[in-house]
């Protein structure tokens, strides 16, 4: 009798619940915790760069402040708004997945993807500006204030390393969203199981947070210091 019950239960159990979990709640909790552990390693990864930035800004405050005048604040602020908007559409995508609304899910994911690509395009324009202005560290580097020639290069090196690593995360995120769209189109998600949408949502928001810190540090805080 007990065996029959079990086999019935096993047949009735939705395939999205893996057998090593007691219930959906535990399954989602495990995924969320695992994703956060990954994001913690990402915090440490970016943390090393923020640490390097902190040390060098304290070492050469005047040189670092002078570089703020060559950052395009308008483009940086626009990109901040674009990324925050993409976080909103990502949050709404997760919400659509929770409600099992396939069309809305695909629309919001597509919207998030487009905003991510807009961000990368604007970043390209900024990088191109730096190229034209000879603000890429290395043999071709020119700087209007010769006394800061070497020190400013350190900031531009950090600028490219930090925004470049951030852009790399955006590109990975765009790839992940394309995967999500393909999965959603194949009816892989339901209101009972949408874990990948939620997890990649966490990743996307994390990348947004990194930019929220990069923007004031690289573009803003030296604007009035001379």
């Amino acid at each position: 009798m007990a065996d029959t019950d079990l086999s019935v239960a096993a047949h009735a159990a939705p395939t999205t619940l893996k057998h090593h979990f007691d219930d959906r709640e535990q399954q989602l909790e495990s995924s969320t915790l695992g994703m956060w552990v990954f994001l913690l390693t990402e915090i440490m990864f970016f943390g090393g760069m923020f640490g390097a930035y902190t040390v060098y800004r304290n070492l050469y405050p005047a040189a670092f402040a002078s570089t703020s005048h060559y950052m395009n604040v308008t483009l940086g602020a626009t990109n901040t708004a674009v990324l925050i908007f993409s976080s909103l559409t990502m949050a709404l995508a997760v919400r659509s997945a929770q409600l099992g609304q396939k069309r809305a899910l695909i629309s919001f994911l597509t919207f998030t993807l487009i905003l991510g690509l807009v961000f990368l395009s604007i970043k390209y324009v900024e990088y191109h500006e730096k190229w034209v202005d000879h603000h890429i560290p290395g043999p071709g580097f020119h700087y209007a204030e010769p006394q800061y020639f070497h020190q400013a290069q350190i900031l531009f090196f950090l600028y490219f390393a930090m925004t470049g690593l951030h852009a790399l995360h955006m590109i990975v995120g765009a790839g992940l969203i394309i995967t999500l769209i393909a999965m959603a189109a194949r009816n892989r998600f339901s209101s009972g199981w949408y874990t990948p949408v939620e997890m990649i949502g966490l990743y996307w928001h994390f990348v947004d947070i990194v930019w929220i810190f990069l923007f004031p540090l690289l573009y803003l805080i030296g604007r009035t210091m001379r």
Partner: protein
Amino acid sequence: MTHEVVPVRKYVAVFAALIALTIATVLISGIDLGEYNFVIALTIAVTKGSLVVWFFMHVNQSSSLTRLFVGAGFFWMLILLMFVLSDYLSRGWLPGPRWW
């Protein structure tokens, strides 16, 4: 930790707050407030980051265990920065702040 469905207007309110803070930080950065420019810019960034973590990343609905992990991550980040700075500052490799 079954997630409740959050009303759209709540997400939009968080979004509006984030945009307002972005505008505020850009405007304030144009005013010379000395060292407070840095303090204000970072305070606004921390506020914005917290809004994203709390509402968009659903930490407000998360289990205590997840919250502990999230808190630990940011705490370890602080340890990293504090120890690096205390080392550089105490060896005199960095100039101290003006009030030092």
